[in-house]
């Protein structure tokens, strides 16, 4: 993978993350603090958290193609690092048990991470379909 390709994939992940963190914040906010009023600067939080989450994903950079096993291990390390970064950035609001908060937060991060992977996989499925169509066109010439 070239550095350029890697940066493009990180930008893609960043935008997926912003969308998913925003959705998760809305859902968690509705559950835990439905009466809380937000200010405009709060809208920067998903962007900042997403940016901080993209940084640890640099562990998955590779020049030489990794094996499937190496790839899976790197993805797991990446998820753990993201969990740690987000847990470091977000402190539990008052009145909520710390352990419960971090458990829910951990689960939410894992769900967001899996959804991001699913989105990227779907994008790849689309790409494959397009390549197959082009292939069939080439074969029919």
């Amino acid at each position: 993978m070239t550095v350029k390709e890697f940066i493009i994939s990180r930008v893609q992940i960043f935008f997926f993350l912003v969308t998913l963190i925003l959705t998760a914040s809305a859902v968690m906010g509705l559950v835990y603090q439905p009466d809380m009023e937000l200010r405009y600067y709060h809208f920067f939080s998903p962007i900042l958290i997403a940016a901080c989450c993209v940084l640890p994903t640099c562990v998955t950079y590779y020049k030489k193609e990794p094996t499937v096993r190496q790839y899976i291990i790197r993805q797991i390390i990446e998820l753990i690092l993201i969990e740690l970064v987000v847990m470091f950035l977000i402190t539990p609001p008052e009145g909520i048990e710390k352990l419960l908060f971090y458990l829910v937060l951990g689960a939410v991060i894992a769900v967001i991470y899996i959804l991001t992977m699913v989105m990227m996989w779907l994008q790849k499925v689309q790409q494959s379909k397009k390549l197959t169509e082009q292939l069939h066109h080439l074969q029919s010439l």
Partner: protein
Amino acid sequence: MDNKAFIYTKSKVYETRQKLYELEEMLKEKHFLRVSKSTLLNLMKVSAIKPALNSRFTAVLQSGEQVVITRKYVPALKKALKGDS
């Protein structure tokens, strides 16, 4: 493997001393494409391209066999399918 290359056809396997890059050069006009360090693929015998883990793709041959397309060779595949090669 041992300075040999193997040519797989529908029913036979041939062995040749020719290098893969020589075969690649020889067959590039016949829709053969390098898809990994060790594989040259006849695009006319591919039935579908599927996604694979690890930023790779898999080419499903008309015989049902599957061949890995490594990330390095994906741009060349895209170029060939667009009719640029």
